């Protein structure tokens, strides 16, 4: 190995090591980082182009069909996924007071994977409770009230809630619903809605915030359950106000490791390549 090659190796290796712990997630389309601020500008900065919600132009913007991860001030990361829709409520200083997100339809397995890392936000909610709910969905038992959800309540700002919604699709029967609601400081600012339609934030003045025309074929898939593929749906027997799935005491917290698989794989491949190269040089 020449001296030049060795120096190159010395320079490359630390860079690869640093890349291994970079907060950037490989392949992420967008990252909504609420860990430092929660503003309309932040939505634009993430690459989204929200439109003003019809009938709610002074209060709310929305986006549809985006792929994004969400970072929260608590350090929690809602991993990258495809979101069918997002709605953000905005006050007149550009801050967000709420964000409501609904994922694209998920298979039962994907729904379980999505909810598992979030179980730890509420004490007393167990994997068994989650699995019991998923089993009801699998068997197409519809509850009269109380689908599965976990949340922080006021223990965190923003309040975080994750829940499932039924989609009506046979193979992907659930959607993940995530809700964030901020308590503003000072609280009285919460009343300061825009007097006119929400304007684009600084730096995006020329960007249109009009909702694009509705295109039926571009929308989320229609429920595709059919009589021949379905067992007869069953309602629970009692129409009483059923409580949410009863939380058990045992809490397992298989939190998301956040292990940077891609950088480590690249690094491993590079090092392996170097080693093989050197070995070949040594023995040939």
């Amino acid at each position, binding site marked *: 190995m020449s001296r030049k090659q060795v120096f190159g190796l*010395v320079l490359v290796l630390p860079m690869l090591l*640093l890349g291994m712990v970079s907060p950037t997630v490989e392949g992420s389309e967008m990252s909504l980082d609420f860990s430092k601020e929660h503003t309309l500008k932040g939505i634009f900065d993430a690459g989204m182009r929200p439109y003003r919600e019809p*009938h709610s132009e002074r209060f709310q913007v929305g986006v549809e069909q985006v792929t994004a991860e969400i970072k929260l001030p608590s350090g929690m990361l809602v991993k990258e996924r495809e979101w069918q829709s997002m709605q953000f409520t905005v006050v007149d200083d550009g801050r967000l007071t709420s964000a409501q997100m609904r994922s694209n339809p998920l298979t039962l397995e994907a729904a379980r994977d999505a909810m598992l890392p979030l179980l730890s936000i509420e004490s007393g909610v167990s994997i068994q409770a989650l699995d019991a709910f998923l089993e009801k969905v699998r068997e197409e038992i519809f509850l009269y009230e109380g689908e599965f959800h976990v949340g922080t309540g006021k223990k965190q700002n923003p309040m975080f809630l994750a829940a499932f919604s*039924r989609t*009506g699709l046979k193979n992907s029967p659930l959607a993940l619903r995530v809700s964030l609601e901020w308590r503003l400081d000072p609280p009285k600012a*919460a009343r300061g809605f825009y007097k006119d339609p929400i304007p684009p934030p600084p730096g995006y003045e020329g960007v249109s915030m009009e909702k694009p025309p509705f295109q039926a074929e571009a929308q989320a898939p229609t*429920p595709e359950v059919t009589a021949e593929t379905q067992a007869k749906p069953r309602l629970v027997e009692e129409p009483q106000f059923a409580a949410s799935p009863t939380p058990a005491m045992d809490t397992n917290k298989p939190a998301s490791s956040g292990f940077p698989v891609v950088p480590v794989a690249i690094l491993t491949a590079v090092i392996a390549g170097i080693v093989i190269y050197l070995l070949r040089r040594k023995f040939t």
Partner: protein
Amino acid sequence: MWIVHRKAGLFKKIFWTLVLLFPLFGWIAYGAFFRPPSYIDSSDYNEHGQTTGNASDTMNVTIDLTLNATAGGTNYADLFKYTVNGTNAPSGADLPSSGSANFTLQYSANLASASNYTVEFVAINGSASYGNMTVALLPVEVAPEFLKVNSDFDEQKIDSATGYAKPDNADENLKAERGDNQNKIVTDDLHKGFFGVNPNTLPSDFYTGATVTITKKVEEDDDTGRHETGTIRLYAIKDLGVSGEQSTVIPISTGEKPSISSDSPANLAATLYGASSAIPKGEGVTYWIEGVDPGPITLEFKYVKGDLTFSNEQKFKVLTKQTKQQWQEEIRERIKLQTRVAGDEVDVNTHHAGNGLSGNVKQVKAVYAYYQQLYLQHENQFMWAGMARTASASIYAAMADAAQPGAAGAFVGVQFDEVEKALLYGQWLIYADLGWPHRAYEASGINALKYVKEDLNEDFTLTPWTQIDAGIAEEDQDAINAGNRELLRREQTEVVLPAYNIIRIAVPEGWRLTIFNWFAENPMPGGPPIQNVVPDGDITNTAQRWQWIDDTSWGMLAIWNGTASSPLAPSFSSAKRKELVEKDLREAARPYLNYASDVP
């Protein structure tokens, strides 16, 4: 190393390079990612614990009064003169006087009534003692931190004009009108106690020539920036030897009467405390506080007689802290009461989709009547409820069509019994999800919903309600409409989906266009059918259905809110909305029937 030890082996050099670089990497990672542990800001310590000035000087002092007396939740305020028996002690000074040092008056005993007590007067640094001090302490009663809004229906009163139940806080009469407690005083949701000096505490001559007031102070609600909205009433109840017999209600209220008003509080010295007071006191008399209007409130009790003045101020919340299930139960009881008085009691909790429409007619009507009542009692505010009641005509007709025994013969393969159950199921899902927040807000305001969301962690979104609340307070109809739209979005894109799922299963592919498109008439009378707004649209498709609702030109929401711009769609005025909501359900449903000859 690569220069000095250039002859060293390559692997050795790489190895030591990595070893040496790891600290560098660690340093970078530390700077970038290390988070210091959180800490508790303990700066909010008790200022009274600090000693300033020279405590060994004469007793010309400022007394920073802290009374550490917790006698069964009763606080004590200072009263006029005191005497300190000690070296250099002044006498006959008022509390507080002026001076150069701070002291803490430490007191720990249970005061049963006002009297003279000997209190040890100690310098906080312990270096000087001024012996014992005789001071008269006055028991002052306070309200609880959270005073329940007395807005349920224990008194079972009905407004004869509307047939609607009157909440218990609607008037000052505490006697039940019907039920097991008929003609008895109901104090279930009142706080037993008084605000200020209990009239039974001191002799009446103490009040001769005095002015005693209870004032609702004009303060700002920290959460909203608007004026505090809470109000209360005070009651005296005398045991007349007849169970539940009510003697007198203290003529004190906020809003209706001037006794506790902010700008002209009445002098209560004669009517409440005097020797011949109109309001009873003494043995057998108890006092009660009722939460009337929800929200924070700041009350001040004040006594003025010559140079002598003392007061006690308290900020608390008039708020009902109930679970979602308790609010649902309250609706259930109100519906039972109203329907019982009307002649046919309905328990909505007996609603069960499996029983079909014939087994649920009363329950279905009761739920829709609930929406009707919500809107009529909160016109142009509970817009979702009004829209739901208006739309119920088409749903009720669809239930009747699906329940028609011959319907299956006309549409071969369609499981109409399942459609019927799904429609009933959907109605219940909506009621269970969206019915109770309306009752909680109506009864106890936005803070009742905050409690359910923030403390009990229920699955619902607070934001629409804060928009509605702000809109009502600031007369901003756009904000009200925006909040109601979010409720509608939740209903249509989340809550009702399981029911639509069942309907899709029950209708074969061949009939879908017919049933989900052609028969899909607009629930807003005069509005365009779905195929006009979404060509080939399918009401069981969430996105297409929502477009039918949300289109700004001629969608249902634009029609309902009165903002539709299309010449091909109506745009409802406030009067039109009321007319539609008031309309009899059967009469409103008949035009929507496709197969059945009538609705039950």
